[in-house]
């Protein structure tokens, strides 16, 4: 996994600040592959309903803090979409 422990803490702090303390975060995509280099940080977040602008502010803050592009997908718990399945089954809960 190509995300450091301090980066994980940063991700959790920003996600909880913008999307609530109960928000759960999964890392998925290319950052799980140690053989690759660079790439976006793909995050899937399950959170209670929130405003769209909170989600966008969260993405901007994460990109500033991590200094890398972030692909942030936010859904409510028990979302049954394909992306939810992929992110939670193939990803790593942070």
């Amino acid at each position: 996994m190509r995300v450091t422990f301090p980066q994980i803490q940063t991700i959790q702090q920003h996600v909880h600040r913008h999307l609530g303390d109960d928000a759960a975060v999964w890392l998925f995509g290319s950052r799980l592959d140690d053989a690759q280099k660079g790439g976006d940080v793909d995050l899937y977040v399950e959170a209670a309903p929130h405003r769209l602008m909170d989600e966008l502010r969260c993405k901007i803050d994460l990109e500033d803090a991590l200094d890398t592009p972030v692909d942030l997908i936010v859904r409510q718990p028990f979302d049954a979409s394909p992306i939810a399945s992929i992110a939670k089954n193939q990803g790593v809960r942070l």
Partner: protein
Amino acid sequence: MSEHIQLIRKKIGHLHRMRIYLDYSLAQTLPLLPIVDFQALTPEQHETLAAFRVRFSELQEQLGKTMRAIAREEEQNTEPFSAVLHYMTKLCILDTVEQWRLIRELRNAVNHEYEENSERLSEFFEELTQATPILNLWLQRIVEFCEKAYPNHLYTSSRAS
């Protein structure tokens, strides 16, 4: 008139035209809000929303290009683009860099995953309608700056066509 200022003037003329098209799309979009059932919209209504979204995106894109051209004319750094945005706050064209980035994220946000979530789409379009006057304000400030910095080059909308 230098070629570069001529280019800025041309971009502003383009911006005035884009603003007129966006204002038209905004007027068409407002009666559709809030969107209760996205699937129930007619093809014409979908087209109205699509036109509004595209015109909003294009206007912000063109504003960014014009800001970069002004920064270049003023012999400022233009890479990365955040340097241009920070310079625009110094010129009081932008209030904050964050506001620009937030609106840019907003316009990108509808592209994925939300087709089945009418509530979210409605929120998206409501935010876009609220952000439209901000784009117009940025354009107005760009024109005011250019009128002062490069006078006698007529940046008014009447010269846009």
